[in-house]
């Protein structure tokens, strides 16, 4: 039996063997479902961000038009005393849906994606009531392609191949096969190439489907580089599992024991590892209490309200030029500004502590992710997809900084009770979130991907060596 004959036989089996057929069709359906579902999810995200931004722009345009009307004399200043009110400036701040949020949902479903940055809100209240997602849905996580790659793909590979050698041995036909001009190594690798090839083909086809217009989004050119990185990570994980399976087969155990060994590795990798790492990260780096934070913010707000006269006095001492006699807008406006600023000053350090703990946890997990390839792969896939925790935490921080930048820019006008000029308004900062570059992402996933590939190569080499020795043993016997 030649290599070509084995390849042909394997290809035929893929189409005719009911078990293999069922497994591959199930995998195909899982991949397609994940891609279609992910596409719908990203589409919703894009629509939400777009409609939110458009609504805010419309609102701001109306606000600006009133100011234009006053400046051009269309409206008399006394007829619209609120036009150009500095305290009322607000801007939309949104995070663009991750370029591949359809493939790896990551934390994008639980983190805020939009904010109307207004000076009336303190920094702890910048994000509206976004916590209305279904808790059932949130708890389970998404059935996205990352989930399929990390969990289902290895299990499919195991189910298709665990008995690639043991079945022939148990049926007593291994000797007969090996009496042909073919080695054990060739037999195993040829069979696995076909079986794993089928899995890889389905995965690649699904990724191609995700690029179809209208599915993951129309920003094809933007998505492709990220998709290349995503594919690199998924490919490295695929190679690792292929090597693990070949290694397990090369141990020449009973089919049942091989299946148990591989299932055990799958469980440790996908369940025990993540559960232990997650618990360890959260125990070693506990988040400061959100409830205590809330109490601090409320107390700061109440205290600021109570001592607003002192705050105002302090402001007038700092800015004697602002004691404009013709101050014509209600006093509560600048009081609110000062109270909000006082609350901001109190809560910003606490929010920074939250960010610091998140950073420490991420650092901890970055170091320990190598203990669980599933964790490592998930984090890398999310990074490539733009749905990682780091990006979302950075967005929240940017929004807070932006609010403070706007507050500083209009402070004098608010305190003086003066109207903003059109030039002032147009010169105010607009929100821009600094996105990580593709090079930066590649740099971050480089080490994890390299690790997966190196382990795969080492395991593969050991496995091929084992198969060589097995060949010798069979010959000797």
């Amino acid at each position, binding site marked *: 039996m030649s290599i070509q004959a084995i390849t042909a036989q394997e290809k035929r089996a893929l189409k005719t063997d009911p078990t293999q057929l069922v497994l591959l069709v199930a995998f195909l359906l899982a991949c397609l479902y994940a891609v279609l579902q992910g596409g719908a999810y990203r589409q919703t995200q894009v629509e*939400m961000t777009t409609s939110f931004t458009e609504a805010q722009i419309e609102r701001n345009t109306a606000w600006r038009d009133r100011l234009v009307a006053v400046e051009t004399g269309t409206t008399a200043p006394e007829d619209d005393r609120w036009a150009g009110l500095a305290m009322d400036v607000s801007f939309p701040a949104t995070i663009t849906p991750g370029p591949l949020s359809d493939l790896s949902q990551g934390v994008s479903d639980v983190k805020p994606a939009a904010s109307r940055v207004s000076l009336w809100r303190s920094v702890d209240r910048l994000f509206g009531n976004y916590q209305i997602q*279904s808790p059932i849905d949130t708890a389970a996580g998404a059935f996205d392609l990352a989930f399929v790659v990390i969990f289902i793909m290895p299990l499919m590979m195991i189910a298709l191949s665990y008995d690639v050698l043991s079945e022939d041995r148990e049926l007593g036909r291994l000797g007969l096969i090996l009496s042909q001009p073919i080695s054990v190594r060739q037999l195993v690798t040829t069979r696995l190439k076909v079986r794993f090839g089928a899995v890889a083909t389905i995965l690649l086809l699904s990724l191609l489907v995700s690029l179809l217009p209208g599915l993951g989004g129309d920003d094809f050119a933007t998505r492709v580089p990220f998709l290349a990185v995503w594919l690199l990570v998924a490919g490295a994980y695929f190679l690792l599992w292929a090597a693990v399976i070949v290694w397990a087969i090369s141990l020449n155990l009973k089919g049942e024991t091989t299946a148990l060994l591989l299932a055990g590795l799958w469980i440790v990798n996908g369940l*025990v590892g993540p559960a232990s790492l*997650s618990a360890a990260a959260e125990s070693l780096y506990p988040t400061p209490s959100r409830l205590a934070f809330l109490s601090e913010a409320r107390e700061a707000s109440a205290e600021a309200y109570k001592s607003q006269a002192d705050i105002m006095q302090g402001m007038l001492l700092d800015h004697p030029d602002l004691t404009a006699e013709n101050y014509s807008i209600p006093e509560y406006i600048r009081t609110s500004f000062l109270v909000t600023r006082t609350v901001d000053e109190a809560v910003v350090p606490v929010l920074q502590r939250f960010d610091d703990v998140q950073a420490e946890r991420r650092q901890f997990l970055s170091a320990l992710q190598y203990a669980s390839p599933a964790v490592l792969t998930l984090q890398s896939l999310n990074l490539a997809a733009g749905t990682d*925790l780091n990006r979302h935490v950075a967005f929240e921080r940017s929004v807070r900084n932006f609010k403070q930048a706007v507050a500083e820019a209009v402070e004098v006008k608010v305190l003086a009770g003066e109207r903003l000029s059109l030039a002032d308004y147009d010169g105010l900062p607009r929100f821009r979130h600094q996105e990580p570059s593709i090079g930066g992402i590649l740099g971050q996933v480089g080490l994890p991907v390299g690790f997966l590939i190196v382990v795969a190569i080492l395991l593969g080499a050991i496995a091929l060596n084992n198969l060589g020795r097995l060949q010798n043993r069979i010959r000797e016997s």
Partner: protein
Amino acid sequence: MIKAIIWKELLQYRRDGRVMSVLLITLALGFAAAVNGWSTVETLQRERQSAVQSDRDTWDNQGKKNPHTAAHFSRYAFQPTSNLAVFDPGLKDFMGSAIWLEAHYRDPATLRAVEDAVEIQRFARLTPAWILQVFAPLLAILLAFAGIAAERERGTLRQVMSSGVSPQHLFVGKAIAALCIIALLAPSVIAAVALAANTQDEMGLPGAGLRLAGIVLAYAIYIGAFTFAAIGISARVAKSKTALVILVGFWAASVVFIPRLATDVGSTLSPAPEATDFEARLSSESSSPFWGSSEAAQQRRADIETEVLAQYGVDNIADLPINYDGYLLQESEEFANGVFDRMYDELWGAYEDQADIVRLFSLVSPTLALSNISSALAGSDMQAHRHFADSAELFRRDFVRILNEEMIENGGEDGYGYMSDNDFWQQNPDFDYQPPTAGDVLSNVWADILILLAWAFLAYQLASRSVRFSFKQEAMA
């Protein structure tokens, strides 16, 4: 005879390194999960008590303030954590723990623990419930997959039959032996219960003993179902290897894949409203039709004015013996409450439809049915959260009404300039949450209980009939 079978099986298990390894690992994970759960609940309870106290203190000492200004600052309702959450935190991390009880608006619960969690948390959570839901069935499979098939492969089944063992005796003996081994996981459960008992009973969960008994019984039925199914499959297929692959495949589907798929399908078929849209609608529909400048809104306010003037027999607002601004505020609350009821009913309705769809999937995954029962009895499921949120909303309405009445009755001509002081704030009530009874909880999960029982019954039938079938096959061979 059964006793002899049990002893023989137990001896065999003791010698099987694989079984002992999985048992010890599961036990260790179970203990770690118990300590982790206890630590989390203990921290949550401590933080909540502190937040409740701080909220009261801040409220009591806010100084002179208009009651309506105070209603905007308002108070918070903090969700208590049940002791049984040490065992099963359910959806607790995915639902907010604090609800702002402000005037004019019904806020969703905020401060979800998941927002501070690491990215991998939704892969796997180290809780005693999760350990039992995931690993106990795996242990059952490991113990029983070879139960009958291996006897047949080794040729010992014929010997067993010739010694007069009936199919029923063999099945019962093997099942009891496997369950005895699984029962060795009990110390980790007992540890969780003991640690739960060691936490403060801040929620005062009614029927806690009954709930705990229900949880134990549900898990026993679940584990029994998997054990029977494993014996049944082992008896039905020709090889133990095939039994193992089928059972591990079923386990992976039931425990890992279907829960994600089910919730994903649920949220697709019954999507929850999009957050920014929901917030905007809630805000606008509860406010504009009352306070807006539309003809309908003006008419609504005019009608109220006419009604009040008629009620007090005066012609002008200035002649009213009450503060009309306060009265109008309370009327606006009554109007908004209807909108909140309608929109939150829609929201909860979408969640519940999702839960119903997920429940349908429990027909193919007993883990889903068990998970629903377990978290419901532990007081950490979605219904428990809804009960809390609805109770908090009722309190909010009462609380805001008290503040409005203060302005109505004492505001006089000062209206928004009227100030209440600490004496008044200190008389205001606290939110005293009363959780639902065990009977209410059971009425929510009766379908899940039936499904779990059906699973156990079918698995028992499968095992019982399959063992008889295997005896017949062996006799005919």
